[in-house]
């Protein structure tokens, strides 16, 4: 059987490109003789001429006479087919898939997402311009620190008001994870009952939420939408009259026993009612208790939290105050040039390693970024003019570092929170920051630069988004039956 030569001038196959959709590699006609575009290669010299007749001695099917009407070629190896080994069927590469995982970007969502970056850049610019203003002695350091502290306190108040909401998100995520694991392990242990704990919990949650919203129980209870917090073990503890401080271990397991206990205590449910009925009634009663309990829990939490915040604030404040003289002289002996270079690199590191993507649930994102910025301010602090040699005036060092902690340590947390809470406020904050940075630049460097900054931000937001979308056409993912399959496994244990 001769080797198959489909095209009179064989060519190299160029990899498929999205830019050239006309040369569709999956086109069945392609395999026959469509001349393909050749990427960089010169056309391949004719491949070795195949033998025209075979000299096989064995009586296997290979030398069967060619039938006029051949059976269609099949992509199988176990059947002897009347086709040469290098036959290229029209179905060749028909299972090739391209760019199946690529989702097109939307321009406006890209621009919207870039606001996070713009915010951070603006806050860096604001900080740097305020440093320059201090450096040039156009602004008193103390006033800068005062302004930023006032803003920080205002931000904290807003942030503190939203604490419960945020906590709920965090706890919801944790709970979700734990529940996932729990139901999984249940499934692993007793097979068919695997799904029930999760479903049961979900039902109960919704029931509790309804009764809490419409019921008599709550002054504060209705305020809180249904959520699995605090963990059921604590409710139970409170219902029993104990302090409610029992450890919240394995909520699912507790929860399973929960309806029984509650039924005994409240005696609202009789033994004859079905399990579902008892569940709903207990959920009702539970919601009452829960709302009260939650209320006290929240208040308690709030108080201790505020105390903690105040304590750590004072601690940082006094530590900074005490360290100021040391920090001032720490890099005093380094030349100006080095200081500017170090500060520039540190700010770059801060910008590049900043965690732009995380949400409110992350407690301490991107510590490298924060550390870089604060180090940078420590380095810069030594360049500030010190009035009066003895005793050294350290107010400016203190102010600068305090400002930097506020701008780089606390402000990002607030920005994340604001974005989580309200998109409109987030946009407003972005505009305010950009304009503030522009104002700072205008006042310190020159108004021309301020205009350049604003134009750069707007152009960058639009331009980069457009660029990224434009680059998408070069995307060329190839998938086919040769790809290693991704196993789909229901996790049964961790």
């Amino acid at each position, binding site marked *: *059987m001769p*080797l*198959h*030569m*489909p*095209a009179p001038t*064989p*060519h*190299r*196959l*160029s*990899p498929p490109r999205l830019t050239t959709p006309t040369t569709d590699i999956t086109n069945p006609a392609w395999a026959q003789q469509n001349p393909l575009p*050749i*990427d*960089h*290669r*010169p056309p*391949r*010299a*004719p*491949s*070795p*001429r*195949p*033998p025209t007749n*075979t*000299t*096989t001695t*064995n009586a*296997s099917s*290979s030398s069967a006479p060619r039938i006029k009407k051949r059976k269609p070629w099949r*992509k*199988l*190896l*176990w*059947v002897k087919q009347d086709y*040469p*080994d*290098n036959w*290229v069927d029209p179905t*060749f*590469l028909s*299972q*090739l898939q391209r760019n199946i995982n690529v989702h097109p970007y939307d321009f406006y969502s890209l621009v919207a997402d870039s606001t996070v970056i713009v915010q951070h850049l603006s806050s860096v610019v604001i900080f740097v311009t305020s440093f320059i203003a201090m450096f040039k002695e156009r602004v008193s350091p103390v006033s800068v620190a005062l302004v930023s502290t006032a803003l920080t306190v205002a931000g904290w108040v807003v942030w503190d008001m939203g604490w419960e909401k945020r906590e709920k998100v965090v706890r919801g995520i944790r709970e979700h994870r734990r529940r996932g694991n729990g139901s999984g392990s249940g499934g692993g242990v007793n*097979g068919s009952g695997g799904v029930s704990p999760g479903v049961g919990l979900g039902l109960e949650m919704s029931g509790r939420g309804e009764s809490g919203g419409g019921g008599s129980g709550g002054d504060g209870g209705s305020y809180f939408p249904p959520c699995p917090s605090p963990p059921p073990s604590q409710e139970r503890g409170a219902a029993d009259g104990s302090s409610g401080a029992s450890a919240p271990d394995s909520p699912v397991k507790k929860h399973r026993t929960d309806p029984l206990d509650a039924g005994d205590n409240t005696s609202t449910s009789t033994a004859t009612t079905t399990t579902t009925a008892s569940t709903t009634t207990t959920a009702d009663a539970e919601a009452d208790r829960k709302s009260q309990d939650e209320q006290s829990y929240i208040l308690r939490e709030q108080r201790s939290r505020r105390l903690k915040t105040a304590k750590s604030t004072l601690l940082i404040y006094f530590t900074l105050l005490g360290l100021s003289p040391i920090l001032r002289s720490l890099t005093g002996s380094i030349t100006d040039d080095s200081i500017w270079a170090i500060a520039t690199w540190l700010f770059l590191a801060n910008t590049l390693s900043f965690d732009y993507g995380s949400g409110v649930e992350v407690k301490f994102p991107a510590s490298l970024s924060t550390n870089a910025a604060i180090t940078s301010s420590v380095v810069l602090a030594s360049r500030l003019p010190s009035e009066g040699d003895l005793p050294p005036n350290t107010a400016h060092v203190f102010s600068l570092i305090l400002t930097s902690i506020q701008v780089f340590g606390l402000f990002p947390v607030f920005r994340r929170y604001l974005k989580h809470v309200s998109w409109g406020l987030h946009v407003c904050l972005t505009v305010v920051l950009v304009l503030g940075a522009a104002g700072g630049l205008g006042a310190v460097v020159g108004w021309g630069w301020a205009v350049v900054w604003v134009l750069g931000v707007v152009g960058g937001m639009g331009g980069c988004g457009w660029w990224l979308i434009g680059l998408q056409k070069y995307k060329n*993912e*190839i998938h*086919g*039956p*040769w*790809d*290693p*399959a*991704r*196993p*789909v*496994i*229901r996790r*049964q*244990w961790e």
Partner: protein
Amino acid sequence: MTSDFFYPQPGGVESHIYQLATKLRDRGHKVIIITHSYQTRHGVRYLTNGLKVYYVPFFVIYRESTFPTVFSFFPIFRNIIIRENIEIVHGHASMSSLCHEAILHARTMGLRTCFTDHSLFGFSDAGSILANKLLKFTLSDVDHVICVSHTCKENTVLRAALDPSMVSVIPNAVVAENFKPDPNAASKTHITIVVISRLFYNKGTDLLVAAIPRICELHPSVHFIIAGSGPKAIDLEQMLEKHMLQDRVSMLGPVRHEEVRDVMVRGHIYLHPSLTEAFGTVLVEAASCGLYVVCTRVGGIPEVLPSHMTVFARPEEDDLVNATSRAIKEIRMGRVRTDKFHEQVKSMYSWTDVAERTERVYEGICRGERVGLMERLKRYYGCGVWAGKLFVLCVVVDYLIWVLLEFLFPRSNIDIARGWPRKATRIGEGSTRRDRSRRREEVLVEEENVRN
């Protein structure tokens, strides 16, 4: 002909090379194998049927692959080629750098080259991109390519940007005599499922770990035999301990290729949860032993066996359990004539057929006209903006080295090795221990021609 991995390391490529070389010898060709030296084996060896193997000392970096040095292999390679009167160099397996180097040098020396690809590669991760570039380099100037399945052919054509008509599909085969069924070995009372595979991620061991407890739960009389070793063995053992299945699942550990048949005949169903597979010789072996095959529908597997011998599953835990349950049911009902599998497989796959088809490829490439250096450089230059220039540089250096070698060690000073006498009495394994290094990796250089 050139090829890649070789004994004493066990594996599919290794046995492919051995069987093909043996059959080609039987058809009157002279075949030698070049590989890298193994710990216990270096120098020149004759296998029992007179097959000559060169174990060349090389530095092994990863999974029996030699360190790619591009040029260092050339002097000894040229010596071997001249000694043995080689005409065609046939490389096997795209992961072997020895094979790539052999093809490059053979082209520099003006020999015919052929390449067999045994594996599938993706296009997404960095390792694949690098491997694909290397493959493109080698295959820019090769006379013909052989793939073991149609899926593998599609993959190779895409990876190396080849003309699909210069790629032939020649499947692997099995020695059916070595995989005869034994109806008495399997248990009559309960169904046994056999799994023989290296326990790696890409062999789907995770699926196996997830599926076995569920299958055992659904079918209380089903037993498992698992043979093979690998990093995922620990997961399997943990699963056994967790679900207390030690008495129903026996793990045999690594099994030698000769013993595979003895393990297989103890079962009724062969389970193969692999995630990627170019051909899956083990499936053919299992079917030849009269086992009903349950396998995932990935890679070239759907091409390998007819549908009455297999139950296909998606690579998902649930579907694998379903497919296995279906297979168990069919076996219980006696609807599968597994006793006929052996004869059917025997008629489907044989190494004689493979050798014949390979021979046809050789005849084809011997007929093509020779390509000059400039033409070769043009081909390499087209490989890419930067890579093309780098490749051209490599080829030019290789050519210069060849000229230098011709000058330093002229052809006339190299002795011609005597061929293995035909039908001679067995002499046994002779080995000349010239090489010191104890490294592994292989290339089988096999030469066809010399029809005596």
